[in-house]
């Protein structure tokens, strides 16, 4: 789960990482009130879960409440890389002498947290890594050893930060960022830029945090940060139903079981000349209610012309899936063609259940490729 800048900064604040004072605003009037409360010049910042908001005009300096209101009006509603701005973070403006970069990420390759620090902040870290790799200090942390102060020292010396006051502040921030990362079950905690003000104060001017979905059960406070309104309504509906669903842009609705097989099904539909409408994984359960829920999600997409059920039973039992399909057809009166392919655990029973019921729009195919071709044909014919 990705956090907005303001949410990440709230997290930073809890761990003692210095951030600027600010207020959330969802209207221009709220932005004015925020500027009034903060006093002095403020920065009005679009809150969107994508990069490039600066270039897109999503970040503006305002010299006071009037200006903040006006700038907020201009930013709200902007479309930044497909994300419509509905929230603003209004924060006290900072003078910037230097821009650094600091992050800790979950390095799945090394299977260790990875710190990165560079004095070349304010730009994409990939760019620094490519153009000026020796400016980027990188250090892995052994997860059992945990954070040790020497690691922070290696980072600051490695990055060439030589001002003693900056060193001291950044050493402290590195330790706090690690705590934030581990104790929040984060996959990424990035500060870009980490600024130094003309007075020599170091603080986080931006935040980018991603939290492990699987650990949200122990972080109720973070879980409730999820912005339901900003998400794709179909994906939100799917989440509520407990269905793993990603909207794509075609006509063949796809329902597989297991992430790998579902991904492969999407690919095979493309190979068969079709355009997949979605990725949808029934998951390990696959009982009747699961099938009903998944079909409900898939059929809410108006583009869908045919549905391809691709099931290979492991934990999932094909007879249950078959019963789920019949139940769903019964409850939902789906008229569009449904192509079903069943194999694995209890596949024979499943096929028999479908053959016995034999609804008119149900087509059972013997192989994955056959079924994909049939689903594509039926979508194109519809």
């Amino acid at each position, binding site marked *: 789960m990705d956090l907005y800048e303001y949410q990440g900064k709230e997290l930073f604040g809890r761990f003692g990482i210095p951030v600027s004072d600010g207020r959330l605003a969802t209207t221009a009037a709220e932005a004015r009130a925020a500027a009034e409360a903060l006093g002095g010049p403020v920065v009005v910042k679009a809150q969107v879960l994508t990069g490039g908001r600066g270039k897109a005009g999503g970040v503006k300096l305002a010299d006071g409440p009037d200006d903040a209101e006006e700038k907020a009006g201009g930013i709200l509603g902007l479309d930044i890389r497909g994300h419509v701005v509905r929230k603003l973070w209004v924060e006290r403006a900072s003078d910037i002498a230097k821009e650094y970069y600091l992050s800790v990420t979950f390095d799945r390759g090394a299977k260790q947290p990875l710190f990165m620090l560079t004095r070349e902040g304010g730009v994409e870290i990939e760019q620094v890594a490519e153009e000026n790799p020796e400016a980027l200090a990188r250090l892995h942390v052994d997860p059992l050893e945990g954070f040790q102060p020497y690691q922070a020292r290696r980072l600051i010396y490695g990055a060439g930060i030589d001002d003693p006051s900056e060193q001291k502040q950044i050493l402290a921030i590195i330790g706090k960022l690690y705590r934030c990362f581990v104790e929040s079950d984060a*996959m990424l905690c990035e500060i870009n830029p980490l600024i130094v003000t003309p007075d020599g104060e170091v603080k986080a001017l931006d935040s980018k945090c991603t939290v492990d979905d699987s650990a949200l059960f122990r972080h109720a406070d973070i879980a409730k940060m999820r912005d339901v309104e900003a998400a794709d309504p179909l994906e939100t509906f799917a989440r509520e139903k407990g269905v793993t669903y990603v909207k794509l842009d075609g006509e063949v609705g796809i329902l597989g079981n297991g992430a790998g097989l579902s991904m492969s099904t999407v690919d095979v539909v493309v190979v068969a000349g079709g355009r997949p409408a979605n990725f949808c994984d029934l998951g390990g359960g696959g009982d009747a209610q699961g099938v009903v829920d998944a079909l409900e999600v898939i059929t809410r997409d108006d583009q869908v012309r045919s549905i391809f059920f691709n099931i290979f039973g492991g934990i999932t039992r094909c007879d249950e899936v078959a019963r789920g399909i019949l139940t769903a057809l019964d409850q939902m009166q789906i008229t569009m063609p449904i192509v079903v392919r069943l194999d694995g655990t209890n596949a024979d029973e499943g096929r028999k259940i479908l053959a016995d019921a034999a609804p008119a729009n149900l087509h059972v195919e013997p192989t994955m490729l056959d079924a994909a071709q049939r689903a594509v044909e039926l979508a194109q014919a519809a």
Partner: protein
Amino acid sequence: MPREGPLMAIVIDRDTRLVVQGLTGSEGRFHGLRNRNYGTNVVAGVTPGKGGQDVEGIPVFNTVAEAVDEQGANTSLIFVPARFATDAIYEAVDAGVTTVICITEHVPAHEMLRVYTYIRAKGVTMIGPNCPGALSPGKANVGIIPAEIFSEGTIGLVSRSGTLTYQIGHELTQLGLGNSTIVGIGGDPVVGSSFIDIVERFEADPETELIVLVGEIGGDEEEKAARYVAEHVTKPVLAYIAGFSAPPGKTMGHAGAIISGSSGTAAAKKDALEAVGIEVGTTPTEVAQLVADRFGART
């Protein structure tokens, strides 16, 4: 169920003495009994508070330590809920179990970082979490792989996905080809065994003649495996990658299946594999056909 043929296999074999953590739960019971019916030596179950009971003759203990002491368990199959999964892994390893297969999905990633580091230092073999387990046809089945779709043979199959593995195994069976061992390593960002770990075992396994590697988007394990194969593997390797049509930034079901920025794409993985001479099939059917062709060419 078959009880003849060689005893050896990778990860699990006829020496496997299995304890099922969570045997009394519905999944644990269903698959534990299936594993036993297949011929796997299921010696114990563990469910705290249910020690002294049995599941169709399999004794249940309160702790893994008892299962090890009293039944000589050496391999654990874990079905406990996600928030108790790493505790179950530590319990198994600390009790002396040397192979752990964790089926549970949604295990927090930070917990797995620590577990991974802990068990690697101990030399313990771990498969998963969020995996279907391992099957050595004719020898043993530990996990949720539907064994009836696979047959005995000499193809080693390793995959990040469960159902996709079944699909490819099924296609191979249709072509009259069988497997030495099938290992589903799991779809999480951090899993106990990587492609390289399993490919290394297949290379050393006298019963494996050819290796099929089934990858998917996310991470760089396929790329690393390609480099490893180029340097260390003499047996033929073929591959399949899922997720060519996946959009960036979206998790495709598996927590590990996500294209981040420009890395982790199926195309990049295919390129890396092909660059070292590993053919990559476009569909599960095609990869099975490539295997059949290769066997035709070799025999």
